[in-house]
């Protein structure tokens, strides 16, 4: 499974939203995800890929598509 699919799966599990809502142009706000959801999503992704995500970098992420790209880069950087 690709990083994109796995990240979507994690978001789906934690926010309890259907597939259709986990779209690239959606935002965490659209999903009504609160800060606890976001912390748990980040923690689950970090656990999955053994990486460390910086919250500060999230400020530049506009939507889920951007978030997935952010995670893909972190995974790639780890090698």
């Amino acid at each position, binding site marked *: 499974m690709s990083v994109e699919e796995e990240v979507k799966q994690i978001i789906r599990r934690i926010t309890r939203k259907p597939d259709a809502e986990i779209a690239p142009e959606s935002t965490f706000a659209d999903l009504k995800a609160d800060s606890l959801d*976001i*912390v748990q999503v980040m923690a689950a992704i970090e656990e999955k890929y053994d990486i460390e995500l910086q919250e500060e970098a999230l400020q530049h992420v506009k939507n889920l598509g951007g978030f997935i790209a952010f995670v893909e880069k972190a995974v790639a950087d780890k090698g």
Partner: protein
Amino acid sequence: MRLTGAMEKRFEDKVALITGGSRGIGRVIALKLAAEGADVAIGYYRKKSAAAAAVEELEALGARALAVKADLAEPEKIVELFDGVRERFGRLDVLVSNAATGVARKAMELTDRHFDWTMNVNARAFLLCAQQAVPLMPNGGRMIAISSLGSRLVTPVYAAVGVSKAALEGLTRYLAVELAPRGIAVNAIAAGAVESEALRLYAGRLDLPKPPVPPAGRMVLAEDIADLAAFLASDAAEMIRGQTIVLDGGMSLTQAQAPSEAEEPREPARAPEGGLDHE
């Protein structure tokens, strides 16, 4: 950093575990105990690089050190944390339950998930850690829970954390009595506003006014908590059982306490709610 008593070696040949020990108050407690001779394990939630840095600092003090990633909301992760301590050190003399998290909302705006998450990390984890710790603890073992004045004073958007800290203090009393026959002393420290990363985060994100300076003339520092934790972990504290020691520079004795409801943060409903990572 002030490490009073650094020349003393009260914890030589002892092993300490500090949950949330990679950053903030937990890190300072870990360094204090290491400076006094303890080997130290730290639990951390997310910040692997901070945990690695803390391990380096601990080793520089001459301690054997171990960092274990553990989401304390998950009971099986707590078991893994103690598996790590058992495998590396084979024993545990001092447990410091320091990790804390929270969702900063008014009580009426909390969901069951917010409440459960906060309670699980801040209070239930202490119970589960204590259950795991006891088989590793010899006579003379110590458990110290890090609480806060929010357990008894009402602070804006602190309901979930404050209630979890009240539970932590109650649990401290029960464990103190139940574990007394095994020679294990259990106590808690309730700190006032501590000059720390977590306070800056909490106050900054929620636009809270700066906490007042307590009668003692300065803010409480992480080092003050570390000094008290080290005392409670020492042989000198043997007869202190089940107590919650207030460490606030006298703040709770005056009316200059945390901001009142009238001074609640602006736009609380839109304020970011999380942020107090449990490490």
